[in-house]
């Protein structure tokens, strides 16, 4: 099932200027990152933060990355982020109502996901974690398909090969190796697709992530590592995961790393595009650290007030990704009230569609337990299936229950 495509999707592939991929070691106009990472060893360079749209909604230039989008494309990015945020809010509400067991909210991370998501080609392949609902949106995975696993009716309700968007991986960091292997396969095929692997700041500590850096570097695999540093891994801040800014890790493995303002959709789009281009043209992997903030909780039963200050969150509100784009669009006269209202309407309709879809989601059949355990079947699974079916049929209300289904 694909979401209504926007014009933006078609154009984003073709129209943006090809950016040169210089190693970005320092930025002229980067705003300083929040001083969270203390104790950096004698690091002379300033913390990098590629930015093309300030929190106040002003367009700025960057020496290494630029983007040139039409009005329609810019509006499309706005729409993507608004609808993604709406979907995310609906899912959170549905969890509150007991329709979902849990929900991992992406609130605050819309720009990082839409920006990078819209940089991809159709034939590129995505390996997400479990919070990339915005990237799913960009890949044409219907939002309702994401909800099955949070409701507990499946472990991932879509066909990865339909949209080149792998299932959500809950084991932290695991998917970065799958992405690397997939990229090695692309290489062997002689294709020029690229692969993007998403992971968080917490995941960057996992051994599998380090191994994926090793493999991708050694084999020069066409994979982009996109780290959404949202500052928190449940209750642990990034300084529990690293002593150096995360983007600098790549250097140790022999490939470039860049840090981008994760709340700046234009910068995310530009940098990701450049990284994908590098990969496609045989220049190997790149690490992008999108510096953003997890505005919500880790998942819906987490209580952030236990481990972080409200002031911090308030400070990040001022850097809201959607607000800054809207400010820019309004200032440039690229949107009017009618347009904004239509987006709100579309947003409400999406919300209702999501609510209806979730409430109507059927539970899987009992016998689904025994399906798809093996591609080629297994004698013991067959035996257990038969025994369980007989057991289920042995209950007095079995026939009535079967009818009621």
């Amino acid at each position: 099932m694909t979401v209504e495509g926007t014009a933006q999707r078609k154009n984003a592939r073709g129209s943006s200027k090809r950016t040169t991929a210089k190693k970005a070691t320092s930025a002229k106009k980067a705003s300083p990152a929040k001083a969270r990472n203390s104790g950096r060893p004698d690091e002379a360079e300033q913390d990098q933060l590629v930015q093309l749209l300030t929190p106040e909604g002003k367009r700025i230039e960057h020496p290494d990355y630029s983007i040139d989008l039409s009005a329609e494309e810019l509006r499309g990015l706005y729409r993507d982020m608004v609808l993604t945020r709406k979907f995310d809010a609906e899912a959170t509400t549905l969890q509150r109502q007991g329709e979902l067991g849990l929900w991992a909210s992406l609130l605050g991370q819309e720009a990082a996901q839409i920006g990078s998501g819209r940089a991809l080609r159709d034939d590129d392949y995505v390996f997400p974690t479990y919070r990339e609902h915005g990237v799913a949106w960009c890949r044409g995975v219907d939002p309702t398909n994401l909800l099955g696993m949070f409701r507990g009716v499946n472990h991932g309700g879509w066909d990865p090969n339909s949209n080149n968007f792998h299932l959500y991986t809950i084991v932290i960091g695991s998917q970065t190796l799958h992405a690397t292997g997939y990229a090695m396969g692309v290489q062997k095929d002689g294709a020029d697709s690229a692969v993007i692997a998403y992971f968080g700041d917490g995941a960057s500590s996992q051994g599998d992530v380090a191994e994926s850096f090793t493999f991708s570097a050694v084999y020069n695999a066409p994979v982009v590592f996109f780290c959404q540093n949202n500052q928190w891994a449940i209750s642990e801040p990034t300084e529990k995961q690293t002593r150096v800014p995360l983007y600098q890790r790549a250097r140790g493995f022999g490939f470039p790393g860049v840090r981008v303002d994760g709340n700046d959709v234009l910068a995310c789009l530009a940098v990701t595009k450049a990284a994908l281009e590098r990969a496609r043209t045989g220049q190997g992997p790149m690490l992008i650290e999108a510096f953003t903030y997890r505005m919500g909780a880790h998942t819906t039963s987490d209580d952030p007030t236990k481990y972080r200050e409200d002031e911090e969150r308030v400070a990040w509100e001022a850097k809201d990704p959607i607000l800054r784009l809207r400010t820019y669009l309004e200032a440039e006269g690229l949107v009017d009230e009618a347009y904004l209202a239509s987006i709100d309407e579309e947003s409400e309709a999406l919300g209702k569609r999501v609510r209806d879809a979730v409430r109507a989601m059927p539970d899987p059949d009992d016998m689904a337990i025994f399906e798809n355990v093996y591609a080629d079947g297994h004698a013991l699974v067959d035996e257990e299936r038969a025994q369980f079916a007989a057991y289920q049929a042995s209950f007095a209300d079995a026939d009535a229950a079967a009818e009621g289904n």
Partner: protein
Amino acid sequence: MAVFEKITIAKAINESLRASMEADPKVLVMGEDVGKLGGVFRVTDGLQKDFGEDRVIDTPLAESGIVGTAIGMALRGYRPVVEIQFDGFVFPAYDQIVTQLAKMHARALGKVKVPVVIRIPYAGGIGAVEHHSESPEALFAHVAGLKIVSPSNSSDAYWMLQQAIAGDDPVIYFEPKRRYHDKSRLDTESIPDPLHKARIARTGADLTLAAYGPMVKVCQDVANVAAEEGKSLEVVDLRSLSPIDFDTVQSSVQKTGRLVVVHEAPVFFGAGAEIAARITERCFYHLEAPVLRVGGFHSPYPPSRLEDEYLPGLDRVLDAVDRALAY
């Protein structure tokens, strides 16, 4: 050459990989030292020269990375045959094997397949230092989504690996390293048994010995000695640990009434426990004696100078046979 009168298991595996790689260009071989060196046991000798570095890949020293990237390649349509250099070193990859390789097909409701084969030289008896003589097969057989097999002779080694590679499920292929240089007959034009079928290696009437991998030969020796003592033992080579061919074992036990299961892995929570429980259920009224198991002790694999005491050898198995027959 269709018939090898005497070919080692190692060479048979080499031939098997060749056959698979020739038949399907998507088959890859990857692991530490498999390419240029041809593997620390020379099992992959010559393959890189013949099939190229693109298909026979020397990997970084990172087991989780090896299995994880193999999964990615399989998702892209390849059929990677991964080597984990020694049984004791599979554990860094255990997460990728158990949480990803085993579950991905079911997680995707059947929409993706991960046809990865993991070859692991396993078990002891080679006088090695720590971690090179483990028998961890139960840790994997316990996980749904994986298939586990172990050949005991050259013909099975040749056929079973190809069958594993051709199938669409993840398979762990345990190679009995102490038997790598044992020779037996191989006919590359014969029709092989199904991959997961057990084989009656020797018929008998008084008691069934069930074993797999390196212990099958030991059980054959045991049966020979027992025959001199007037006892007729039937030897079943299980060949597959997931699934287990319980029907063949059941038929045998219904005939003999007694069963002894033999493996190098520790008895506690080993494959023998599953077989004992299930055969007791299926053959309750046929059993003349409880199912006995002979295996390693519940202690870390000992230094090599003690391994003969730890491993089930001829006398320990015969002891169990005697005890079972005494009931």
